[in-house]
């Protein structure tokens, strides 16, 4: 019962924040701006618009996570607003899950809105049939942002906003290269191989949420991919939030 309440309040906090509105408007402008490149793309306008549009959703979503998500818990501790919640009958894990759900919800709204804008731009270009591929791409971008938000909540619960932004950005960057890292580990010797394997397994497997190339060619992905990506995101978020809860449980609020 308390998790939805905290999630709703976090969603309200995020959507009333000017940062989110500013990022959404900027993202919309960038997607609309791809119209200008369309004429220069030598027949690859559809591919360019889709690829840039889906990249915009991911990167602007990441920007929101870094600006809002990484201070989500740390700011509450710093400003002591967390006292208002934790002196109520609320467990600390419920608090963290609520914060994660609330910001994830706001990011889903962002991904969905920008996805619809992208579809609209493509429809204006006469590529309305790209709709399913674009929405699938936006869905996977939303899943990716949900995973990154879980990491932001973990780091935010344990450190300062600046440090948690750096850690989150680091995990995002390494996560984007996790397949290459795994491949590199296969060829590396001894201890380095083990280390790289551990790192590759710890960071989120973000390429699983990337279907930009596929969507740019107008092809939807398989249901199997969507289900697998969804399950992976849920399991990864579950593990990260369990870790965050365990660390947060013993924390003192002076």
């Amino acid at each position: 019962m308390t998790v939805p309440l905290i999630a709703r309040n976090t969603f309200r906090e995020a959507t009333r924040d000017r940062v989110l509105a500013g990022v959404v408007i900027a993202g919309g402008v960038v997607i609309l701006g791809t119209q200008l490149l369309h004429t220069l793309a030598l027949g690859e306008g559809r591919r360019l618009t889709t690829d840039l549009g889906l990249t915009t959703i991911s990167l602007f979503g990441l920007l929101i996570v870094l600006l809002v998500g990484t201070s989500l818990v740390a700011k509450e501790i710093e400003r002591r607003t967390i006292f208002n919640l934790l002196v109520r009958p609320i467990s600390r894990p419920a608090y963290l899950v609520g914060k994660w759900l609330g910001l994830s919800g706001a990011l889903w709204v962002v991904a969905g809105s920008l996805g619809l804008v992208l579809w609209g731009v493509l429809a204006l270009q006469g590529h309305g049939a790209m709709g399913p591929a674009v929405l699938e791409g936006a869905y996977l971008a939303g899943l990716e942002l949900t995973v990154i938000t879980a990491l932001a909540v973990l780091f935010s619960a344990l450190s300062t906003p600046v440090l948690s932004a750096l850690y989150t950005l680091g995990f995002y960057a390494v996560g984007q290269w996790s397949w290459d890292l795994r491949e590199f580990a296969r060829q590396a010797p001894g201890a380095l191989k083990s280390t790289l394997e551990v790192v590759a397994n710890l960071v989120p497997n973000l390429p699983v949420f990337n279907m930009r190339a596929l969507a740019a060619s107008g092809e939807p992905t398989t249901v199997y991919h969507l289900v697998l990506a969804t399950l992976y995101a849920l399991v990864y978020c579950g593990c990260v939030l369990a870790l965050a809860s365990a660390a947060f449980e013993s924390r003192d609020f002076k």
Partner: protein
Amino acid sequence: MQAITRYPDDRSPADHSDRDPAAGPAIRTVGLTKSYRHPWTGRVVPGVENLNLEVERGEVMGCLGPNGAGKTTTLKLLTGLLKPTRGSAWLLGEPITGVESRRRLGFLPEQPYFYEYLSGIEYLEFVGQLSGLQAQDAHERARRWMGRVGLGQRPHLVLRKYSKGMLQRLGLGAALVHDPELLILDEPMSGLDPFGRRDVRDLILEQRGRGTTVLFSSHILPDVETLCDRVAIVMAGRLTRMATVGDIVSGSRQRVEIRCAGVPLLEIPPGLGEVLKRQDHSHETVFMLHDDTRLNEAIDWLLRRGARIRAVAPQRTSLEDLFLDAARPKDGPKVEAQSDDRRSA
């Protein structure tokens, strides 16, 4: 400033005065200890040491102590914001380690902070629901409490536009919106003007009338003296004294003020020097006698020296004096005995 208003009779909240008094104390701590370890030096700094405390249901207890004495640490331990290093505690029979201990608790932190993007009524609805109220009930109570704490005229004003006093009032509303059985207030009069202080005093008295247990810390000693059934004095993380206000005051020696004229050059004799202190004013000299059993001796001496005595007035020892007296190191060893006495009582 709008005053806190009383409930109309037909809208009175739950009355806790009929609760079973045999259900155990509202607050019980056994050997509650909190210490902090410096992350670099490893040095351990005590916050609260071996606190044994019982607050009976329906009682109003004041927690006194200088800055850094451990009052806020104690309240934060009870509300789950700090984790104890050792010892145990129960609120309304529930261990403080579980969330259930906070279901019937209302807490006002020192200098409360709020979500600035919410309006006052949204905030009260939110915290009411977090304490278990249904949405409709939370909405009605939020409206009612906005009015009760004097903020009812602009319920949709966002909190970033609230003054400090308004935020303190809202914090009180948030602590009370779900009609808790136990109220823990950390410096509830802090930041309030005299009207606000009076309103908070009235509110605490009203809660006492309803049978709500109240534990609060304060620096404003006259308020503590007015409101409390008992007082706990905390010094350097230890409970140094706990008794009723009446016991503390009546157990002390009376002081007597002697106001005189025409004695500017009078020297106090060595025999009276320890108990008689003088203060010279422009129009009179005031002698403060700290032991009323020696009043005749002091008056005899003054009359012999030709002093014109204008008035002799017994002075009731204030809680402030007793508090300052308790702050002296000599009281340290009393700690365990008094807290243990209370526990076994």
